[in-house]
Structures are given as C-alpha cells and as structure tokens.
C-alpha cells in the first residue's frame, strides 16, 4: 500500500459483509486486493492505468443494477460490495469460456514469462468448458519475427492490451499498438514491421506482463524440455548502476532466464535488454575454469589452485623484498561485489601499509 498522504480522507465501506477502511481515491479492486479477496483479472497490471476490458473483476454494488468492473470503479463512503456469489462466478466462468475457446493453447510453460500463468490458473479455478463457444478464432501469429528474444504468437492473444499499455505507460516507447477490432484485433508495430525495425528496445516488459504466453521469452523457453523444476533466486542485475531487482530462473545447475522483480525498489518490475536477456555468458565455454600460470614460452598452462596461489603470493613477496612497499598496486572492480572490493583494499592496506589501491571509476 502506498504511503498515505496527510490530507487523504479515510472512508469506510462494506466488503463481503465486513466493514473495511480505505483511502479516498482507491478503486474497489485495490481495496478488495488488500483484503485478499482474490478477485480474478486478466487485463489488470497494478503498474498500469486500470483498463476495464476483461470484465472478470466485476463485483456487485448495492444500488447498482449490473455488476461493475472493480478495477475502474472508485470505492465510495458507505458502499456495500460483494466480490463473490454464484451470479458473479457464473458470469466470470462464461467470460473465461469465451476467452478460452478462441485460444489455441491454454497450457503455457512458466518459462514463457512472469505473468504467463494467469489465464491458465483462472481456467483451473473456474469450472470452464473451453469448447463452449467453439467457432471463429482471432489471432494471426507473428512468429516469423526473427528476433532472438520475443516470440509473438498472437493466436494466444486475448486483446487485454497489457503489452501495448506497458510499452506506452511504463517504458514510454510506444513500439506496439492495436490495429483493427473484434476478431481481427491485432497487436502490431508501426507499419507492421519486425520489432527490430520499430522503436522497441527489447526491454521485455511486454513479455513480462502478458497473461497468456502470446508473448514468450524466447531465450527462457529454450529450456522448456530440460528436466527439473524452475527455481527462482532473487538477486540484482549486474550491468549498470541502477540496481534492478531480478529473479534468476534456474533449472538444475543452469541459468535459463531472468524475470523482473515487480517489488524491486529500484526498478519496480522494469528491466532493459541487457538485464533481461544478456545472462548466458555465465555458462559460456570461454569461462575460465582453472587457474592459469604463464610458462617460459609465453603460453599459459592450467594449474591447481594451491600451486597458482603459492606462485601468486611468492611473486608479490619477491617484488616487495626487492622494491619495498610502494612497488605494488591493486586495481579493484566496479563490477564485482563489496566483498571483492573490500578484500582488495585490505590486501594493499594490510599487506603493505600504503593506499596504493584504486578501481575502474576513473575511466
């Protein structure tokens, strides 16, 4: 919950029979969400302006004949709201049946993207008959976009426009937009070109918000058939200094993908092309796997740790013996963690009594 400003009015409403407090300006959905009502949504992303398109979040408000979309309706003083009953469930089930019946694939691998399970989870939660509205299907898959990061399979698109909205509202890039209406609705770039030829920066935000896997993380999905569970480890991106929080996706001993952390304080769910996709250097065959020692002929040979460490130490000792304390210098990294930088400066200060230490910030 956002910090409450001093002048905000606190109001009371009745939510499923309980009196609850809320701040003037909050939507019914926000209040219900805070009270764990698990109101279903598909077009909703808390970071975006409410859109009111999917109608799944409808609730009953006493005094209003038809159910209202809770994501776009502001809560008001004294309002009496029901988020669950048979009528609402039936309504939601029918809506989901319509969505499911025009989708080719309602089972999506979780590696597809951060929100990719949303539709599938709702189909499990409600007693949906997917074939009920069989017939015309929307779509027009665009899988021929050869970019290596974002799979665009619009056969699975439900026109929630979250991708379009996140690109505009969160990224300010406006790379994709909506063309046509109804079954012919199509998410497309300006002039219908590939993403590379649009203003797309491949930040991956559209993939992260897609609730159906219509937009899929092409790099992560490569590991779909790798055996094992997907594990998520919270960490921080290691490129620029913004410090975006991420979840590292792993299967076994391999990093298979990156997802943005929606609650990351620096990025609040945003990432860039590097943070989102430039991770597989970790397992690149060029990685050094053993210490190397230079031989007389100038080439390197692999060595055991003990021998290499001993030689490294002896080399430093020899220079100190011959040239004194002011002949050795340490260069720390702006890329390695604190423990590396701290140890580097201590190596010099505790080892030599000098301040002959620097890092790469001067270049």
């Amino acid at each position, binding site marked *: 919950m956002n910090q409450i400003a001093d002048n905000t009015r606190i109001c009371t409403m009745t939510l499923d029979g309980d009196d609850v407090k809320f701040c003037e300006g909050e939507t019914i959905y926000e209040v219900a969400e805070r009270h764990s009502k698990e109101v279903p949504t598909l077009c909703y992303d808390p970071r975006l302006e409410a859109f009111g398109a999917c109608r799944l979040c409808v609730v009953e408000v006493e005094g209003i004949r038809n159910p209202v979309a809770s994501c776009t309706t502001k809560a008001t003083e004294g309002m009496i709201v029901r988020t669950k009953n048979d009528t609402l469930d039936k309504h939601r089930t029918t809506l989901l049946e319509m969505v499911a019946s025009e989708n080719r694939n309602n089972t999506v691998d979780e590696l597809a993207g951060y929100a990719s399970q949303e539709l599938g989870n709702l189909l499990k939660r409600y007693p949906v008959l997917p074939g009920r509205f069989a017939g015309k299907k929307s779509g027009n898959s665009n899988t021929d976009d050869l970019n290596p990061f974002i799979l665009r399979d619009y056969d699975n698109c439900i026109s929630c426009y979250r991708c379009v909205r996140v690109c505009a509202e969160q990224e300010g890039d406006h790379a994709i937009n909506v063309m046509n209406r109804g079954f012919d609705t199509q998410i497309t770039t300006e002039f219908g070109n590939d993403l590379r030829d649009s203003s797309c*920066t491949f930040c991956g935000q559209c993939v992260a918000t897609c609730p159906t896997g219509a937009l899929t993380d092409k790099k992560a999905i490569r590991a779909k058939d790798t055996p094992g569970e997907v594990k998520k480890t919270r960490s921080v991106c290691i490129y620029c200094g913004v410090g975006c*929080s991420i979840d590292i996706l792993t299967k076994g001993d391999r990093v298979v993908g990156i997802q943005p952390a929606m609650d990351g304080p620096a990025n609040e769910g945003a990432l860039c*092309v590097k943070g989102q996709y430039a991770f597989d250097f970790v397992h690149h065959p060029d990685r050094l796997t053993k210490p190397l020692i230079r031989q007389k002929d100038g080439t*390197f040979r692999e060595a055991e740790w003990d021998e290499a460490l001993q030689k490294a130490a002896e080399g430093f000792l020899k220079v100190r013996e011959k040239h004194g304390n002011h002949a050795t210098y340490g260069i720390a*990294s702006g*890329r390695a963690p604190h423990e590396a930088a701290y140890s580097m400066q201590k190596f010099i200060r505790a080892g030599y009594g000098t301040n002959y230490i620097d890092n790469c910030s001067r270049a």
Partner: protein
Amino acid sequence: MSNPLRDMEHPDLIFCIGTNMTECHPVAATRLKKAIAKGAKMIVADPREIHLAKLADLHLPIRVGSDVALLLAMAHVIAREGLIDREFIDARTADSEEFLSHVKDFTPEWASEICEVPAADIEKAGLWFGEGSPSAIFYTLGITEHICGVDNVQSLCNLALMTGNLGIEGGGINPMRGQNNIQGAGDCGAVPNNFPGFQPCGDPASAEKFSKAYGIDIEANPGITKVTALDLCGKENGIHAILIDGENTVVTDPDMNHCRNALQSLDHLVVIDLFLTETAQLADIVFPATGFAETDGVQTNTERRVQRLRAAVPAVGESKPDWWIIAQIAQRMGTPGFEFESAKEVFNELCSLSPIYEGLDWDRIENSEYQWPVPDKDHSGTPRLHEKEFKNGRGLFKIIGYRDPAEIIDDEYPVWLTTGRRLQSYHSRTQTGRSSGIDYLLSEETLEVNPDDAKAWNLEDGEFVKMASRRGEIQIKVRVTEQSPKGTVFASFSFASVPVNVLTGGGYDPVTQTAELKVCPVRISKL
C-alpha cells in the same frame, strides 16, 4: 545520487547533461519519461541528438567539452533574473556573494561562442532551471570524463545551491553510476584517497583506526591513482607488481598502447576474472572468479541502496569468489586478518569499520530497504541526502572558469571524437558479447558521422575509414546519421575489433585524474 530513484518521477524541470540515459541507464530513464508524461519540462545538453534529446523540450547540442561555459551562463541568467533562492543561500551555503559577482561576466552571448549553440537557448535554459520547482540535475560520464570533470560537477553544484534544489523531493544532483557496483567499490575504500566509508586517508585519525584494525602502520596520506600507477609501471622506484580484480584495463582505459606497455613491463601481474580478457592475457597468473548468478555478495546502486546478490547456480568449473582468492593470496603472504570463511564475514567486517554502514549487517540488508548512510541499528536509512544540513556544514559555492579541453581541433586533427556506450552492449563486451541474441541487435561498432560531414569528406555509409589521433589509429565503418552533429563523430569502445581507446587519452583531470575520454581530436581519411 543525492536523491532516490523514485524522486525522478517528481521534478518540475529535468536537466540532463552528459548522460545518454535511455541507452546507459534505461530503467532509470523510464522514470523521467513518466515525469514528462505528467508535465515536467526537460532540458538536455549533449552534443549528440540522443533519444533523450528527442524527448526534451530544449536540446542544447553543445560542443564537446564546453559544459562549464554553458553552466556559467545559466548561473548568470538565474542571478540576473532574480531566480536565486535567497533563503536557502543564506541558511545553508557559504561564499555566495563572490560567486554571484563572478557569474556577472558570463553572459549567454559569451557562452554561445564557446558552446556553439544560440544564446537565446542558453538564456531559456537558465530561466527554466531557475523557475523550476523543483529542478533536478542528472549527469553521467559526459560530465566527469573531461580534464575539467571536477569543474563541471562543481558548476552543477553551484546551480543547485543557488536555486535551493538540494534536500528536496524531485530535486538534487544525481550522478547516474555506470557500473553495478562502482558506488560500492568507493564505499569499500578501493580508492587511493579514502578508507572504507569515505574516511579520508589524509586524516591521521582514520589512518590510525585502520592501522589498529589491520595491525600494521598505514601511512596517513593518499596513495597514487591508477593513472599514475600505470605511468610508473616498470620504472625505477615505480610499480613492479599489480593485482587486478575484474577489470579489462587494456580495453576500457584510455591510450591502449601505453596501457599495454605498462602492464607488460611489470615483474608480476595477477588477474582475477571470469574470462581470459585482453588484460588477463598479459598476466603471469590468472585466477578464475565466480560471477553473476554464482556469487553471494552485496552491491550498492546509484541511489546508495545496499542490496544482496545471491548465488543461484554452483560455480562454473573450479572458479572461486574474488574475496576468497584475494584472501588466499594474502594468507600465503603472511598478511593477518584474512581468515574469512564467507562473504557474510567480509561484509560484516566492512560494516564494522565504515560509519555509513555501521547500522547494517548481512542479515539486515535481506530486503534491500536501506540507502546509506545508516549510522546505527535504529536508523532507517537515508533515501535523500542534505535534507537538513550538509555533511560539512554549509554548501560551498566554487569559483570556476572555463578551460579548453586538453587537445583541441586543428588543421591536422580537425574533427571532434566523443565516445560512450550503446544500449545493447556493455563495456568491453566480455559478458554481453557472450550472450546469445545481442548480436542480432548490435553486431559491430560504427562511427557516427553527420550527413553534411559525410558529403564534405566524400564518405559513403558503410565505408571503412582510418581514424587517427595523436596516439594511434584505427579502422572503423562509417554510419551516416543525424545523431552526430556536424564536426563531431561518435563511437563506443565496446568492440575489440574497433579499439577506440587506442585514440583517447589526451588529458586528465588534475584532481581526480579521470581521463578526458569524451574529447579527442581526430583525423578521418579514406582507406
């Protein structure tokens, strides 16, 4: 940054100078875009028509290295138009009278000659900045990588001080740090002038504190910078051994040939890295370090937020954490105090010796909620600096004059080269270059040349040219684009096949010894 990242959504006036934020700090830039969508105005001073410039209400394509002139003239306009914050100046600053009288001489017309932008635009920039409530400053290496880098930063401080834009939401002076833990490297004392926590090496009490902690007499005066150290390599009474942790010095530092010669002249070079980089190839011994996704540790971001890195997979091969490798060498040299058994122990020792981290420890930073300084365990951190007072009492105005770059264009080297980064690649590409798919977006380096220049120099788009400076020459492919202004070309230093830093290194800031990587006169000729 003086202010937290979230404040970037709240300025009334945004002033970006020397920062290509949409490419170098894309996620931070999204916050500026949101502020603009909410009605904030933006001024961008940058020689190139970068994406940020296209979003700006006012773009000042100043000549490379002319920032001080622009900032003096903006201060002149603010003072002349009575847009100073008198209350703030009286309550919080010192030496304002001298400064306000100093800027009287520097009119927009005077600056216009140096910056090569219209005086009316400079006037407008001054007015907008002075009227903004609040006005926020954002900068990156386009400000610091000059022989006058310190002057540039102090000129920006003068602007913020005279308008009272410090210690308030949506204001501040905000350098965007370029590397994930470059802030942390400084916090940890990996600099020649400060112990951990910015305790000055020249301060006898600090030297005594660390002498006691480390059990050795540490001299109470700053060491030499890396730039000086590289100059002294192999020389009598110079540097004969270097330990490099995770830096591709040869590619990322200026004057590549000089740098390579320096490292080759050492008796002993030890490099710790993930890859056999161009720098590691010169070493006597190379140690394989664990990297991203394999290492538990801590890093600090540009808003001073102290965050945990967590290992998600086992170390590749026999690689080990940097701290372990360094500690093992130190132990074998007989240096005491390196009996660390975990990253946690190392970090907690740092916290115990650093006043800005004193309230932190490994367990407290689990949820990333602290921004330093965190002076004690009851402190909730400091998202915004300078709210009530400056660390040293009053904010001091500095008297700054304009200086030309170390090298200026002449008949022999008639074109300005400026360098930087691109969105899709990072530094020397040791990581982005080894990640699949990145090449699809950016597969080679090109030299950005203005269409008028291309015509005048008879160059075709896609043609390879020779580019020479006073230090060396390289070959590079031309890309004709309006993004570079007439008379100025741009390239990044990311690709090993186009080692732009062979050319750079004409001068260094006298205080920080930061290289003037943003300005390098060159000659471009057909192959």
